[in-house]
């Protein structure tokens, strides 16, 4: 080595590996309008299908007359449940063990439900055909309140299940009941509550909202009748799972189905489920022999494809007079709509709601969740969260605030008293999880210091006094949150979807000239996998990230995986990537030793090369090794340099964070202003700080939307009141405040590179931070609990009900 030899630091930097804020390689095409989304797919002779949808929330379908529709120029077919029935496709299984009508089979259960599928030469003809289909409905009594759904004399919604006392997740206690799912020790918890110094009790409602990705759902199905192969392009967050499910439903052999997820314009859980549009497009393509495209419009998307949340969480939290929490009880009434189409691991019908003990050392707890049918759209997906973790985090972070009120204690101090301590990890929670690692106190103190918490409280107290003196009409709210997520589903032993184990995978091929391609079972919808997975690999195998292509989403080429949602890509596929990289390195070590004429044990890894121990000037770079792997006959070693890894994680990962929102509230108009938002995230090892920051910005913005205005609201007749972006709040740059991001780093002890996942943390932590700020502003005037979304009129009503309007 001489002065011209790059230093270890220079060589490391050159790789753009872990910890590098590498620019997103995807952005070149997206910023130039060169993305390739499903609606960009155009094929010769392609047809277009679209739905006749129900205007009623609950009605019997007496008759469907397609005669006039079939006269519309360009309309080729109108499919109804009767046409699908001989194929057994008029109903389909949901991911939650229920079944769902593909097309209305005798009745409809929610407004916007798919009634008939019009197939036409183009989408304009299809729209005219939809208008011409005559459907005769007989309206039935509508149930939109999940509590009323369980009244003894409530209308029977699911006549197909009548008399069935056993559901997919145990006994059904009522004709509109889906399941009761329980965790923890009910008896012990109730005994603690009965004898506690203090018990705070409250109903915490997390309203119904919608992931609303910028690109709605859609697909193109193309059945090649010559070779019997079905190709399905679509907005799928889990392409392999779609292939397997499509094979099971249709009877087409799995090797004859190819599923491709092209560029996807955001998913946020909305694109995990299986929708009638996919089934109908496939059938229509089989029937016509032509490719068939189905693309939702915005109203379809908001009205019919998967919503999120709608959890009524009744909570009781017990504590000593000094503020040490002694027990937590929660009963949730979960509104699932007309079909149970949650996208949760099979054994978890309420997702990971049992993470609801949060960041706190709570000795005993109980959770019961009753799932209920109503006349609303099905769904209940994890909208930028890991399976009901947002609900759980919102619940516990509200309960902590309410307990603080009950104890007349500072809410930051109450959290401090109850955090799980660093030395308690791995920590067994009362509701059954093993938290892998955490250092909550350090994060908390860092966050409080960063915002000058004491100063803020002082300012707030002064503001309250000024308000009382009539000098201001604005209140100051300080919204605190410390959240713990559970992501990275997950261990196959307890996480599967429809029996498909939730492992993930990576396959790597190193090219002779020292570049590589890696394929994964996941699929990016904006997460930047092509950027970050290349960085993981760069650090593992010593080839520059810029020389590594990442490919996902084509089931004919990518290894099997369960897809991207629930912040599982980095914890599971990211781990598979690292493990596959290590297999490459193991083979490379043997090749290097051969080339350097030393024993395998006499070489050591050094950033991008193997060097002889004690003689660093004698080395072979990964690029040199790759060339030799293909082109030099090495005794006892197969040619080539490839590896594949299927990773079944030993545990979930538990990212956490401390978020603080400072909000000004105009009590006269209900208008709020975010003065400051501080987000500290600990997602373990940080792969790309810039992408993490982007994820936090995006996730907190979605949290802002949810907490402050976004909802899917129904009237009593089951009409969707917020079916367009006029009423459904999607923040623009104007409504989006400035964010301060920060971090601590507590690696996961069981993940190969210590990473935990971050995409969903800001939504999980952001919602309670915003909501707690609203509540905190009114704490001095006696507010305990109000319901989201905190839009102008709800905040105004809070102020009004507290007598602040004189």
């Amino acid at each position, binding site marked *: 080595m001489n002065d011209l030899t790059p230093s270890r630091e220079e060589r490391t930097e050159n790789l753009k590996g872990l910890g590098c804020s590498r620019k997103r390689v995807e952005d070149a095409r997206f910023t130039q309008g060169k993305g390739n989304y499903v609606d960009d797919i155009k094929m010769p002779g392609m047809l277009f299908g679209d739905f006749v949808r129900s205007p009623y929330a609950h009605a019997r379908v007496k008759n469907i007359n397609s005669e006039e529709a079939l006269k519309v120029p360009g309309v080729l077919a109108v499919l109804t449940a009767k046409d699908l029935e001989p194929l057994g496709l008029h109903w389909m299984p949901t991911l939650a063990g229920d079944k769902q009508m593909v097309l209305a089979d005798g009745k409809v259960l929610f407004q916007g439900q798919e009634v008939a599928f019009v197939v036409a030469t183009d989408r304009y003809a299809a729209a005219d055909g939809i208008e011409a289909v005559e459907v005769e409905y007989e309206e039935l009594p509508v149930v939109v309140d999940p509590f009323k759904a369980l009244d003894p004399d409530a209308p029977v919604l699911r006549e197909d299940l009548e008399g069935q006392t056993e559901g997919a997740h145990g006994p059904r206690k009522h004709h509109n009941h889906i399941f009761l799912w329980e965790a923890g020790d009910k008896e012990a918890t109730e005994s603690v509550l009965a004898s506690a110094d203090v018990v705070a009790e409250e109903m915490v409602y997390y309203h119904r909202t919608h992931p609303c990705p910028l690109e709605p759902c859609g697909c193109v199905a193309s059945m090649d009748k010559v070779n019997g192969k079905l190709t399905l392009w679509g907005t799928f967050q889990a392409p392999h799972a779609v292939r397997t499910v499509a094979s099971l439903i249709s009877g087409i052999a799995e090797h004859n189905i190819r599923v491709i997820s092209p560029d996807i314009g955001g998913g946020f859980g909305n694109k995990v489920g299986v929708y009638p549009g996919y089934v109908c497009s496939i059938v229509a393509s089989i029937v016509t022999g032509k490719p068939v495209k189905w693309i939702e419009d915005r109203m379809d998307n908001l009205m019919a494809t998967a919503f999120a949340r709608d959890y009524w969480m009744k909570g009781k939290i017990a504590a000593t007079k000094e503020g040490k929490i002694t027990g937590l009880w929660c009963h949730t009434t979960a509104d699932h709509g007309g079909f149970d189409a949650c996208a949760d691991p099979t054994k978890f019908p309420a997702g990971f709601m049992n993470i609801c003990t949060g960041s706190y050392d709570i000795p005993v707890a109980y959770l019961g969740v009753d799932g209920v049918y109503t006349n609303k759209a099905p769904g209940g997906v994890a909208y930028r969260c890991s399976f009901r973790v947002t609900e759980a985090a919102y619940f516990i972070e509200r309960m902590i605030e309410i307990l603080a009120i009950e104890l007349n204690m500072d809410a930051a101090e109450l959290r401090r008293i109850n955090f799980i301590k660093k030395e308690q990890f791995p920590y067994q929670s009362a509701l059954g999880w093993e938290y892998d690692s955490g250092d909550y106190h350090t994060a908390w103190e860092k966050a409080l210091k960063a915002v000058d918490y004491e100063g803020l409280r002082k300012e707030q107290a002064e503001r309250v006094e000024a308000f009382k003196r009539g000098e201001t009409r604005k209140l100051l709210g300080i919204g605190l949150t410390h959240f713990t997520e559970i992501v990275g589903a997950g261990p196959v032993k307890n996480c599967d979807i429809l029996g498909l184990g939730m492992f993930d995978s990576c396959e790597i091929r190193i090219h002779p000239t020292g570049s590589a391609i890696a394929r994964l079972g996941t699929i990016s919808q904006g997460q930047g996998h092509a950027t970050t997975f290349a960085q993981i690999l760069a650090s593992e195998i010593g080839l520059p990230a810029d020389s590594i292509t990442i490919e996902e989403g084509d089931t004919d080429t990518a290894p099997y995986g369960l897809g991207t949602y629930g912040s599982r890509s980095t914890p599971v596929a990211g781990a598979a990537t690292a493990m596959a990289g290590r297999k490459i390195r193991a083979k490379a070590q043997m090749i290097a030793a051969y080339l350097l004429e030393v024993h395998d044990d006499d070489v050591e890894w050094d950033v991008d090369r193997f060097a002889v121990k004690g003689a660093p000037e004698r080395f072979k770079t990964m690029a040199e090794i790759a060339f030799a792997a293909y082109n030099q006959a090495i005794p006892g070693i197969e040619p080539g340099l490839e590896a594949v890894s299927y990773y079944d994680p030993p545990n979930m990962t538990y990212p956490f964070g401390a978020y603080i929102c400072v909000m000004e509230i105009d009590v006269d*108009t209900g208008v709020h202003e975010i003065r400051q938002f501080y987000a500290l995230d600990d997602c373990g090892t940080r792969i790309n700080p810039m992408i993490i920051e982007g994820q936090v910005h995006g996730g907190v913005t979605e949290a802002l939307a949810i907490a402050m205005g976004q909802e899917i609201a129904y009237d009593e007749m089951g009409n969707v009141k917020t079916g367009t972006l006029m009423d459904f709040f999607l923040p623009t740059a104007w409504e989006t405040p400035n964010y301060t991001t920060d971090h601590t780093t507590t690696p996961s002890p069981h993940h190969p590179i210590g990473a935990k996942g971050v995409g969903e943390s800001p939504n999980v932590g952001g919602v309670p931070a915003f909501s707690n700020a609203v509540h905190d502003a009114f704490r001095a005037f006696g507010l305990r609990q109000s319901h989201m979304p905190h839009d*102008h*009129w709800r905040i105004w009503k809070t102020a009004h009900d507290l007598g602040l309007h004189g």
Partner: protein
Amino acid sequence: MIPARFEYHRPSDVSAALAILTEHGDDARVLAGGHSLIPMMKLRMAAIEHLIDLQDIAELKGISVDGGTITIGAMTTQHELIDNADLAKAAPILREAALQIADPQVRYVGTVGGNVANGDPGNDMPGLMQCLGATFHLVGPGGTRDVAARDYYEAAYMTDREDDEILVSVSFPVPEGGYAYEKQKRKIGDYATAACAVQVTMAGGSCTAASIAMTNLSDTPIWSKDAGAVLVGTDCGPGAIGAAVDAAVAAIDPTEDNRGPVEFKKHVAGVVIRRAIERAISRA
């Protein structure tokens, strides 16, 4: 979200547009910026067989400040209102109000004429035009006709305009004194929860003229003669402002929607009106 089939016409002068309108009667509608009409067509709530796009008609565009009168062509966009230096100087309330309409993309296409002619109670320009005492100029088969903005609106989407007339321009005297357009909305792109336009002139510490109009607080814009009258002759102190607010609130009749119930809207209207009056006075 695909409209029914329609014929698209793109005349290059007003008489050609009128001829098409006359020929097709109820089946035809003129298209300005399209922000109200196109969504209604896409939702198939409006079936228009003949759509007459006015964008190629040069005589419908432009802003003139001539002597004491401002005239704005119907096809002038909101963006052009914001961008016109003469107008900003002569009637700054227009710029202030236009900047609160939707977002730049909408304002590049949305027009003054479409905004005032359609009779949508959510639109901002009708209330503003009533505040300014504007006159709307209509052309029909029988010639031209002028209608005061304060007389134009009958109910939601119901106006004094006949089906075979086109609104070609609006004009109003150059406003004097202080001004304000105050609007509360849920988000960018939303209609007002409550909005209020105010012009006030003061002389020697006393109010000499005041005009107050409100948006989206009834099924038409509301110009409250009483609210203005209450201020005139006073020093515009808290008592007078309070009385003006009370008079203005007494004139509105909001309905419940996703923005909130009537009680909330009336309360917010009072706050918004007060802020508009106070800001206008501070500039008078």
